[in-house]
């Protein structure tokens, strides 16, 4: 299948993943357990884009605000919308990342990497120092992608498992409760 067709046909997987992740993060107050790696922090914040329908029937809803409870977004979920883009804070092993994740093209936007002590100032030369800085940035980007991939794997394993209907029922309960509390 052509990639453009594949993106269109399978875009719901990314949108379901982000929506599932929002539920998963709120289920335990912002904590998500990665198999074999312990708890990480996943918080949905500030900015969210929800979508419903395809092509001419596509509806979009943008919600943003620093202290927002994302009320409109929660109501949007109840009208069948799913997340297309969300601003996330992810903390693993005291490393804090902030990013906006796009569901359709799997875009990592405006990624803020964890603060580190910087490149090794004791390096023998400016070249070695630069090489250290470049490799550190690559390591941090790769770690972020690894965390997001681990979360995606958790989702698709749940989504293709025999017990998906039970998990779906819990998500639906959350969608309704979440909108009722608005």
């Amino acid at each position, binding site marked *: 299948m052509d*990639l453009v067709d*594949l*993106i269109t046909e*399978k*875009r*719901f*997987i*990314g949108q*379901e*993943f982000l*929506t599932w992740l929002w539920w998963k993060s709120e289920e335990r107050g912002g904590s998500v357990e990665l198999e074999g790696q312990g708890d990480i922090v996943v918080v949905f914040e500030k900015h969210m884009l929800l979508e419903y329908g395809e092509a001419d029937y596509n509806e979009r809803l943008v919600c943003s605000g620093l202290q927002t409870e994302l009320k409109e977004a929660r109501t949007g*979920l*109840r*009208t*069948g919308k*799913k997340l297309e883009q969300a601003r996330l804070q992810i903390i693993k092993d005291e490393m804090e990342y902030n990013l906006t994740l*796009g*569901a*359709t*093209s*799997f*875009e*990592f*936007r*405006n*990624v*803020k*990497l964890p603060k580190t002590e910087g490149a090794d100032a004791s390096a023998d030369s400016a*070249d070695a120092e*630069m*090489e250290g*800085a*470049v*490799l550190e*940035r*690559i390591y941090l*980007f*790769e770690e972020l*992608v690894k965390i997001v*991939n681990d979360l*995606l*794997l958790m*989702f*698709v*394993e749940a*989504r*293709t498992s025999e017990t998906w209907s039970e998990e*779906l029922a819990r*998500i*639906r309960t959350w*969608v*309704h409760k979440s909108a009722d509390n608005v």
Partner: protein
Amino acid sequence: MSFLAGSASFVRFSIEGELPENPLDFISDRIKSFVFEDIDDNFEEYSIGWVSVLSMFDSAFDYGTHLYGDYVVLSLRVDERKVSPSILKKFTQKEEERIKKEKQVPKLSRTIKLEIKERIRTELTRKAMPVPAVYDLVWSLSESSLYFFSTNKKAHMLLEDFFKDCFGLLLMLQIPYTTAVQLLSDDDRQARLEQITPEIFV
């Protein structure tokens, strides 16, 4: 948007195709053949090529390598002379008026109008300063994957074409579905993922 500093935006590609023996030599040679060539001092309309990630002016890689450990780190630089449609329209009309007066005719034929427009476009393009765009990328040789630091779809297409011309390798954008298929080790799960249809979460 840059890889090296501040906040960054990126997408990921998987790389399809085989590198020849001595891949590092091959990559270095290909980069050298496809470096960016400056068009500031000539009248070329368009130039695309590799520069060092450390400086958009370093296409000889004098100040830094493209190889960092197991990664190829490069910037794709694209310079283009552009003329805005409103400027082209204005100068085309001006020239049409001048010719009408000179020839003392009330109207110009369609062919002449097209010729004028094309001539003016060439003249204005020559005068326009090349507008640069620089996109960073990190190519993981062990993973056969590539981080591209732009979310611009047009830039993705430029990269895909240029990468293929340069290295003979194909880039495939990694979307959640294709990433998930790679992550699932179980064939049954992969088959089930292929079959699933959108779920209603309400």
